[in-house]
């Protein structure tokens, strides 16, 4: 039999704390207080004949079950819990917008290719500005999504690197989902850039009109969505500070 690794109380406590920190029900201060409580409890238990590992296990047990603690703290921090849910919802909506948009890219490409096949006369004005605006909006949406996503991970004072390392060690649905999201986003983005540069070189009247209205509509759409997301994120940040 291999000898067991010696028990490290501090890393055990950190692990316990990280586990709680995954829930928005606990603010950073709540976690500090619970950790202080656990350390008091362990110190007291160790004055008996318990080893640090035994004291830790009993201390954690006495402090309370994670689910029950989460429910009770969530009642006090309900605003944060709901803002967090809403933020995730908005990220979900952005994801949905992206799917619809990628779907639109495929449709536009099909129309373009089809018109070319019919020997349509490609000799009208370029759509430079609106296309550039749409591309800028797409990029800022992507950047905003990344920033808010990473902020959600970093909340509760956890470092991004440690959290990512943890997620990679135990790949949760979140990490996989977000990774896949970024990958699909990037590849689809490459496709639309390709299609739009082709459009700029040879802009047919119909494709131009469709492209301008489509770009402007998605621009407004994205701006509204971004503004709403930023508003909620700001409120959530403020709530976390209080």
């Amino acid at each position: 039999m291999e000898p067991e690794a010696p028990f490290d109380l501090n890393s055990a406590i950190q692990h316990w704390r990280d586990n709680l920190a995954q829930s928005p029900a606990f603010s950073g201060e709540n976690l500090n207080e619970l950790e202080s409580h656990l350390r008091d409890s362990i110190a007291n238990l160790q004055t008996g004949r318990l080893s640090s590992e035994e004291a830790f296990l009993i201390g954690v047990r006495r402090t309370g079950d994670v689910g029950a603690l989460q429910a009770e703290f969530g009642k006090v921090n309900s605003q944060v819990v709901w803002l967090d849910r809403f933020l995730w919802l908005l990220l979900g909506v952005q994801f949905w917008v992206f799917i619809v948009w990628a779907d639109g890219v495929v449709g536009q490409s099909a129309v373009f290719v089809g018109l070319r096949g019919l020997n349509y006369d490609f000799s009208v004005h370029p759509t430079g500005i609106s296309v550039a605006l749409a591309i800028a909006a797409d990029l800022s949406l992507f950047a905003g999504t990344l920033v808010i996503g990473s902020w959600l991970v970093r909340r509760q004072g956890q470092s991004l690197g440690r959290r990512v390392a943890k997620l990679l060690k135990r790949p949760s649905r979140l990490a996989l989902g977000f990774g896949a999201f970024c990958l699909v986003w990037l590849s689809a983005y490459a496709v639309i850039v390709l299609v739009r540069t082709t459009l700029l070189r040879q802009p047919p009247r119909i494709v131009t009109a469709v492209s301008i209205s489509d770009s402007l509509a998605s621009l407004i759409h994205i701006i509204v969505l971004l503004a709403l997301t930023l508003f909620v994120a700001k409120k959530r940040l403020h709530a976390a500070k209080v």
Partner: protein
Amino acid sequence: MLSKELVAASTVPLVLSILTEGETYGYALIQRVRQLSGGRIEWAEGMLYPVLHWMEEEELIESEWREAETGRKRKYYRQRKAGRKALDEEKQQWMAVHETLTKLWNPKPRSI
């Protein structure tokens, strides 16, 4: 052991009463209740903190992070004016229940 409902109802007066003895922190509060009740009142320890935070919001108590003699930081709770008033009201209500039940059960409590 106390029922869940009684534990919930008695937490606020217990906390307020202990804080009249002076400021203290969460873990010590729980230990004090355990000691005073001879272990008959057992709180799920972590559950005390949301109650304390609620009481703080209601301005019954106030808190402060301070370094303890161990070198670690602890959050100390203190009673506020409104807390003293709330405790007086709680006292009257609990005494009313207590006196009524005592009259019914004394001098000879009926055995089952």
